[in-house]
């Protein structure tokens, strides 16, 4: 089966959970066998893994004819894409886009991030999708998150193949209810045009059904999973000389993640327990406010801010942690507690996160219930049995949550759509 996927991020150059999830799902589907996946991203860097998906860069796809030779293309985009494919794509240009700002290859430049002119970039992405859809043979189209819905719709119109959209988050999650009307309309349009909608949790499924008015039989939940960690990361150890218990918050310090509840719970615990330290790792627009709050609660001596952590640093932080907390106010899925569990860190998550639906061996609390959060923290750092049970059972549980199972579900869904 041939699938054409539109995504925005792909490892190793990722900005959030979207890239990790897109990658995991693609790989999981490939592991099921008999899948030929073409994955489009705005701007590949050339070091993306290519063994299970054919990666196409939107910024390498011509929308305007340029008379260039093979060698020139090779030197320009050779490390990212097969040059011959450039010429295939060039043969399928379907309109005159010379009025747009294109480069020497007739391609539109993409940042591949979330720039100021994001809406313009989304629009350009869907123009490029037209060329790709005419070139690549596919049985089904799959769009990851709202940025790529217009591209998916366009491809569907061109090919007449069924469109699946994958809702990794909705604007209701990002904005605590104050949705941006433009974003909402793009999302709604995508959902209306989709033949089927995949959500990452039942929580998101409900949002799609209730807030976007989509018929429930069109929406299926496929929970995210995690990639197994490699030996190197698993063998990371806590720094020697660590004497106190470390309780960690890891993520963007924004309204959606509920950082203030973490600080309040920390204040309660620290007033009762001496040998504990709280760490808020990450950055975000609420960071300064959190620093002030910690100072106001008189816990700044044992409450630390690390700033943004990336790559291996994240796992080093987890290896040094005794408790991981994700008090998100609204989290479509939330993959980071699963990563903490992989590292053997007992986790506390809010009931308002999608991953709470599939996890048993974690402590679930309401994000606003700082008392319960403090109780749970105290229990884990004070009672060894609690720590060990959560650590071991959590590890066993998370190792069962693999992408190939999620992939099989998606493939099954594809089949039903194609045979309809």
């Amino acid at each position, binding site marked *: 089966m041939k699938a054409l996927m539109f995504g925005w991020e792909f490892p190793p150059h990722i900005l959030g959970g979207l890239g990790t999830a897109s990658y995991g799902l693609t790989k999981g589907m490939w592991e099921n066998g008999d899948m030929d996946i073409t994955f489009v991203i705005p701007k590949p860097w050339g070091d993306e893994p290519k063994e299970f998906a054919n990666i196409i860069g939107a910024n390498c796809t011509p929308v305007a004819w340029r008379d260039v030779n093979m060698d020139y293309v090779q030197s320009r985009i050779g490390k990212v894409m097969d040059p011959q494919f450039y010429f295939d794509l060039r043969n399928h240009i379907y309109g005159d886009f010379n009025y747009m700002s294109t480069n020497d290859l007739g391609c539109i430049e993409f940042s591949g991030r979330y720039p100021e002119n994001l809406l313009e970039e989304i629009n350009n992405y869907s123009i490029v999708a037209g060329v790709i859809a005419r070139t690549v043979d596919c049985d089904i189209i799959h769009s990851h998150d709202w940025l790529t819905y217009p591209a998916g719709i366009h491809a569907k119109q061109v090919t007449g193949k069924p469109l699946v959209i994958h809702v990794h988050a909705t604007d209701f999650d990002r904005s605590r209810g104050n949705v941006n009307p433009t974003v909402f309309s793009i999302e709604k349009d995508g959902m209306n045009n989709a033949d089927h909608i995949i959500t990452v949790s039942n929580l998101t499924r409900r949002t799609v059904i209730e807030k976007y008015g989509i018929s429930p039989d069109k929406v299926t939940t496929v929970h995210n999973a995690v990639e197994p960690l490699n030996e190197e990361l698993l063998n990371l150890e806590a720094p020697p000389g660590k004497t106190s218990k470390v309780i960690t918050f890891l993520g963007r310090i924004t309204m959606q993640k509920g950082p203030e509840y973490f600080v309040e719970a920390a204040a*309660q615990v620290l007033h*009762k327990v001496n040998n504990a330290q709280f760490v808020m790792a990450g950055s975000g627009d609420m960071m300064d406010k959190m620093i002030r709050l910690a100072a106001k609660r008189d816990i700044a001596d044992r409450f630390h801010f690390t700033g943004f952590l990336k790559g291996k640093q994240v796992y080093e932080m987890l290896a040094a942690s005794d408790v991981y907390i994700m008090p998100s106010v609204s989290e479509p899925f939330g993959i980071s507690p699963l990563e903490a569990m992989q590292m053997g860190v007992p986790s506390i998550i809010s009931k308002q996160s999608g991953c709470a639906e599939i996890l*048993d*061996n974690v*402590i*679930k609390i309401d994000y606003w219930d700082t*008392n*319960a959060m*403090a*109780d*749970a923290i*105290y*229990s884990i750092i*004070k*009672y*060894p*049995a*609690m720590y*060990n*049970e*959560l650590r*071991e*059972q959590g590890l066993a549980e998370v190792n069962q949550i693999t992408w190939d199972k999620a992939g099989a579900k998606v493939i099954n869904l594809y089949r039903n759509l194609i045979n309809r």
Partner: protein
Amino acid sequence: MKAICFYFQIHQPFRLKHYRFFDIGNDHYYYDDFADDDIITRIAQRSYLPANEMLLDMIKENGKKFKVAFSISGTALEQLEQYVPEFIDSMKELAATGCVEFLSETYAHSLSSLYDPDEFVAQVKAHDAKIFQLFGQKPKVFRNTELIYDDDIASMVYSMGFKAAITADAKHVLGWRSPNFLYSSASAPKLKLLLKNGKLSDDISFRFSNPEWASYPLTADKYIHWINELPQEEQLVNLFMNYDALGELQPRESGIFEFIKALPRFAAESDIEFWTPSEVVSKFKPVAELAVPYPMSWTDEARDTSAWLGNTLQQEAVRKLYSIGERVRLCTDRRIKQDWNYLQASDHFFYMSTKHNDDGSVHSHYSPYDSPYTAFTNYMNVLSDFMTRVEEQYPASIDNEELNSLLLTIRNQEQEIEKLHREVEMMRNNIVKDTTGDFPIDEPEPAAPAVEEKPVEKKKPAKKPAAKKPAAKKAPAKKKAPAKKEK
């Protein structure tokens, strides 16, 4: 001829209130009285009281041919006395018919049989005393918490003078053998064993009102027919269940009361009698010995103790609890004793079960907590506070043996002082009589004559120096005073 042996279990734990870590050291009251009151009153109204009434009617109607046995935990009795005293009266009435036998068990429905033999013996005695006080019966047959049983328990039970014990029909123990016989224990051959007939018991307590069950609806006619169909030599059917199966698990509307009520009539037609466990033991002979090296119970598919001790949380909590058992038994503080009892209820550990399969769903059904982890946290917070209180009574730095001898000295001294006091009193009276009031009685301080008298009365001079030293260490014992204030 066949015999049905009915036995009903009544147990309610004292549920813990939400106890935060801030409360440790500050709040020494642990119980959720509201929930206890609410639950026991509801169950009593829906099940216990109407069921008692029904049993009474049945006994009257059937000319004392209908007999049952009860096992009521001490904590349940306390709650019933407090919240539903009319139940105790109704139970007394039942007891007076002579058709009801009360079984022995641990007072707190505890797991002490597996962890703390001394505590086990103490609790069984406490429970039997309570039964005797309320119903005037001395239990002869023993039934352990949730029918937990193994060879070690059998030996303990036998040495306490019981004729028989009641336990479950675990497949891994019975194998091909049928539970419908009387057995005896391998470790204590004189102890008889009554095994629950799991299928027929659960037909009533779990499946009775389930319309998806193939044998639905179950009628007394059909049920007695099944029993009658059993092979000729299988003469004993032990039906053991929770009392709240009548009216609570199987609601009144399902016709459960009418079903039970109709049993004796059909049983009489088929020459089936109703016996109490004691009767069974005296009338039947055991057919074989049963060896049970590992503990079994009547809970879950596995019929083992994993429902209470299956994960590390549960094991840790139980271990911590019984680690202070010896200490607590040294204490004399009434509230500590009481809390000790209540904290031992097996239910607390049941709530911590992390079995997520179908089997385990029953755990969350009964649990007041939303997750086993919350159950553990709450229990451990309470236990931490309890342990500090025990510690305050007797510091952990003194080991049990030393403490024991110190306590003995103190007690001996107290007795001796009392004895001497009495003597002083007596002598003073004698002096008053002898000297016809010439000696001023008020002049000698009460302490002074005591000192004077001592050398005369000192019969154990060796004891004195030993006793003097611990006098300084009496301090911990004296601390009782501030602890009592919190009442």
